[in-house]
């Protein structure tokens, strides 16, 4: 027996949206349980107290922020001469242009959603409004001439505008607010523009000279002398970015990329050694000694390399071994450093010929590479030995933040090859290499950096032969390089261990030698896997540069902590310690925070943690 069941007509409905709104959000995220609620209230109170304390500290009337604003140049470049400031700007412009070109060429930076940008704006605005409300605004006025009440009002108004703007950005586009439509670089550019506008308009107390040439305090835009260069550099970068963006599809990508990489590699030594240092080159000696020697090495060395590449058997290796011994022996006799270095590199090139020499086009590239190496070595040796013409009060033309950045970059760049060699040595199957690398790495890592810096500053001058002198900056660079190399080696070793055995076996099956396997198969993969760790090392080295203040170099921290608090002329900042230190902390933080964000992006992009 069957009977019919009449099914009711059910209309198809969209699923009910989950309950939302601030109340639901608060119930779920702040007051989910009684304990969580209590914790939330405690945390909110603590956060407000810290915020209020911080504002009270920053805006207290006895704070001497003029110690920072008056010494802005000292903090940045120490005593770099006024007349030569253009060199600094040129250096910054080169780096900015290269960054812009790289961003355009690699199409870096994705798009973000209006929702996220709106949230960011709202949070920023809300923080400002909150500062207006909870700040301990007293009756006295701050050194910036902001009366308490107008300070409060100003904060609230600016904050509210931002808050509302952010809210509108979140809600007005409707569903489109969740679509990624705003380019990230646009947001960055807007932020930079806002900062630039602020630099042009906001006035702060700065030192100036009146008509009679007496030092006075004037209320002027803080970046009076620097706003024009900054603005031009930003404009130049934007132009370069768009030019590269357009050009990118019209030129060979491979050529553009290799040119850019070459420019990046060359930029740093050129900036430090040529632009900032301005060596007084003795051209007579250059043409009578450096150029002929280099030409001789290029021609004769090239012929030798070509000969070695075309011989079979072990003759090439034998020549290389003999040359290597001769090169090492040359260090025992008085001789020009140029000859020693060129001999050493020729020996290494000869030894590497069977591996990389190749045939036909490969050999031509190899010979060009040799010529380039000789030219660079000669050029930089000629530059380094020439005295600097930049006249500064101290011993070094580098100081302040400039010194900090230069120290960090040089230490990182130099320690990378050493670190790779050490890592290869430590994971090698050859026991003596392994033993030496392990000893080096563990000895260096077992002892704090400050000890090595003290060794470099006190022991090194004693251990060097008479006549060889190493300046303070070079000593610090040396100590930091060898220290950082040990840590880098451990990072790289992690990458080497992550390479599956199959890669080695496959390359052996292809008939590659051990060296070729290492250089062409293993290292590229290993380095790619440890890029985030390497950025972490960059951050660590940047933070570690602050230690050079202990051995008396005039880096950023040294000026903030020792130079400014002992100033009595033309303004008395005796004992003003907390303000410059806080400023230094903020500057360091901005650098390292940017790097750590880059590292996180890279990690996501490379998918390192997800394999």
């Amino acid at each position, binding site marked *: 027996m069957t009977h019919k069941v009449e099914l009711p007509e059910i209309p198809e409905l969209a699923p009910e949206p989950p309950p939302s709104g601030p109340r639901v959000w608060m119930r779920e*995220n*702040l007051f*989910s349980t009684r304990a*969580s609620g209590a*914790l*939330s209230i405690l*945390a*909110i109170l*603590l*956060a407000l107290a810290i915020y209020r304390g911080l504002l009270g500290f920053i805006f207290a009337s006895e704070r001497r922020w003029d110690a920072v604003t008056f010494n802005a140049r000292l903090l940045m470049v120490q005593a770099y001469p006024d007349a030569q400031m253009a060199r600094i700007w040129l250096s910054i412009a080169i780096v900015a242009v290269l960054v812009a070109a790289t961003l355009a060429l690699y199409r870096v930076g994705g798009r973000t959603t209006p929702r996220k940008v709106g949230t960011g704006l709202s949070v920023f605005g809300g923080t400002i409004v909150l500062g207006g409300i909870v700040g301990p605004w007293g009756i006295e006025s701050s050194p910036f001439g902001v009366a308490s009440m107008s300070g409060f009002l100003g904060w609230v108004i600016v904050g509210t505008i931002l808050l509302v703007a952010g809210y509108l950005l979140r809600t007005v586009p409707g569903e489109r607010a969740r679509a990624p439509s705003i380019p990230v670089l646009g947001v960055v550019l807007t932020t930079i523009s806002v900062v630039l506008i602020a630099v042009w308009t906001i006035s702060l107390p700065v030192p100036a000279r009146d008509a009679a040439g007496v030092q006075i305090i004037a209320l002027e835009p803080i970046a009076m002398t620097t706003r024009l260069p900054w603005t031009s550099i930003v404009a130049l970068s934007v132009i370069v970015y768009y030019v590269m963006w357009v050009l990118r599809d019209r030129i060979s990508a491979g050529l553009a990329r290799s040119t850019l990489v070459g420019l990046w590699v060359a930029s740093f030594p050129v900036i430090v050694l040529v632009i900032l240092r301005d060596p007084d080159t003795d051209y007579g000696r250059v043409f009578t000694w450096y150029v002929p020697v280099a030409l001789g090495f290029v021609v004769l060395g090239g012929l030798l390399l070509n000969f070695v590449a075309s011989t079979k058997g*072990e003759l090439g*290796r*034998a020549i290389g071994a003999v040359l290597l011994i001769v090169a*090492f022996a040359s260090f025992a006799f008085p001789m020009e450093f140029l000859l020693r270095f060129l001999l050493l590199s020729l020996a290494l090139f000869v030894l590497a010929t069977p591996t990389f020499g190749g045939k036909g086009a490969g050999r031509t590239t190899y010979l060009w590479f040799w010529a380039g190496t000789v030219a660079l070595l000669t050029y930089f040796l000629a530059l380094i030995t020439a005295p600097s013409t930049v006249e500064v009060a101290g011993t070094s033309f580098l100081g302040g933040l400039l010194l900090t950045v230069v120290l960090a970059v040089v230490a990182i760049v130099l320690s990378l090859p050493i670190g790779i060699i050490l890592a290869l040595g430590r994971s090698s*199957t*050859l*026991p*003596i*290499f392994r*033993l*030496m690398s392990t000893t080096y790495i563990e*000895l260096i890592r*077992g*002892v*704090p*950096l*400050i*000890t090595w810096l*003290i*060794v470099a500053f*006190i*022991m090194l001058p*004693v*251990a*060097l*032969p*008479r006549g060889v002198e190493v300046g303070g900056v070079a000593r610090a660079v040396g100590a930091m390089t060898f220290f950082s190399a040990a840590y880098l080696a451990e990072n790289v070793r992690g990458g080497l261990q992550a390479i599956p055995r199959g890669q080695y076996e496959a390359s052996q099956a292809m008939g590659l030698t051990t060296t070729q396997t290492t250089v062409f198969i293993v290292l590229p993969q290993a380095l790619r896997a440890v890029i985030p760790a390497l950025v972490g090392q960059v*951050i660590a080295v940047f*933070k*570690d540069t*602050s*230690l050079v*203040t*202990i051995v008396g170099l005039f880096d950023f*921290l040294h000026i903030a*902590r020792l130079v400014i608090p002992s100033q009595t002329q033309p303004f008395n900042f005796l004992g003003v*310690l*907390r303000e410059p*230190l*806080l400023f*230094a*902390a903020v500057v*360091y*933080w901005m650098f*390292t*925070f940017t790097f*750590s964000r880059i590292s996180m992006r890279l990690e996501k992009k490379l998918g390192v943690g997800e394999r």
Partner: protein
Amino acid sequence: MTVQVREQRKTPLWRNAAFLKWTSQLFTLGVVVVFLGVLGKQAFANFGASGTTFDWGWLTDPASILLREGIDLNPDSGARALVVGAVNTLRITVTGILAATIIGTLVGIGRLSSNWIVTKMASLYIETIRNIPLLVQIFFWQAIAIALPGLVAADIGTYWFKGSNKGFAFAWVSWNGGFWPWLVFVVAGIFAARFLSRWRHRLQEETGQPAYPGYWAMATMLVFAVIGWFLWPILSFIEPVLHGIASFVDAIPPIVIPILIAAFSLIAAGAWIRSFFESRRTPAGFGKITDDDWFRVIFVAVSGIAVAVIAIALSGLTLETVAGDSLTIAELIRTGIANFFDWLGNGFASDGGQPLNFAKASVIQRGNFAQYGETGAVMTIPFFAVWFAVTLYTAAFIAEIVRGGILAVSKGQTEAAQAVGLTRSQYLRLIILPQAFRIILPPIGNQYLNLFKNTSLGVAVGFIEIVAVGSILMNKNGQTLPIVIVWMAFFLIGSLSISGVVNYYNRKMKLVER
């Protein structure tokens, strides 16, 4: 049928892999040794030209320096001054490791909390602290502390906590005569608690009924501590025993000590080589022993013999002590061991009183100035700056490690724990954290090492740690190389001890795999 056999040519020497391998290695080693040798020779020549000679006499010469804090403010010798610095370093290291672990774990768990504001505050803390150089932070806390108001006559009195530009004073316990005997009771209590808690654990697993092993352990320790508080005088016999051991050690002929060291080194090397060959033995006889294996065996043998020879050769060297008499190194080691037992015995020599004494901090008038009194504990400004900065800094890194470790425990574990009805605190404590601990431990050990090494930044704010003491001595006597060697030895031994402890726990916690 004829078979063509290709003639096997012998490999020429310059194509022989083993030959090339060892020549290149030995050549590199030679270059490095020659390079270091040239540097060293030059250093000695330069030292000689400047009139300073390389010697260790400063270790026992009167130091005549004043140290600002530590167990001995007026050390009678260079060695003693270094010991003061080392103790200060270790003070910060041990307390800092404890505090950083607690703060770091709390912040790390807080970052994963379901409570929005707690998460945000934890992230803010980590992102701020981690991205500012430690040295800047040390300077900043120092600057904050020295800006505190000074002590004036109106401040005289006793306090639970008092901060001023002379440092921070707080109420603290101090130990008296009965402390060491009481400690024996407490240690015995710990062993008893371990035993009892294991028993209760077994009971719980056998019966399935809760047997409260944790409460049992705590109660046992408490009982032992309370009993010890009253009964410690019955342990007064320990003192003469320890002094007896000390005088026995003093009576050992000095030659025995280097012989013991040498014998130990030779036996250890022999045992290693023996076990190495044993591991190469197969039922069919010895396996192939490659040139690498021979290198290892020779290396171990040479090191063992070298240690033995050095021990015997150096033991005859005489040093002048502070008291002015010459002792050989062997005698010095012997005296050191005997002094250690004497020191331990003196600890047990009771002068009555309770084991522990609790006292509030005080501010007293001394001369024309108000100063902190002897009661309670005082944290000087340099100590505070270094300790606070290092602890917060390391805690930020530990928090990230803890977060990563918890996230690395698979989600299925949480879900399974919830499915069997465990509460959040139960599954965190019993399921997640024990598994996360295994992942967390090695990187946290690295952070402990960093903390230990970072205490050396105290030299920048005048904290009397080993690098600062070394620098002072360097300026005084110009003996840079020996002091650098002492630093290295100290930091290497410290690093090795910390990583030894961490590795021990690592091995213990490791997943037992079949």
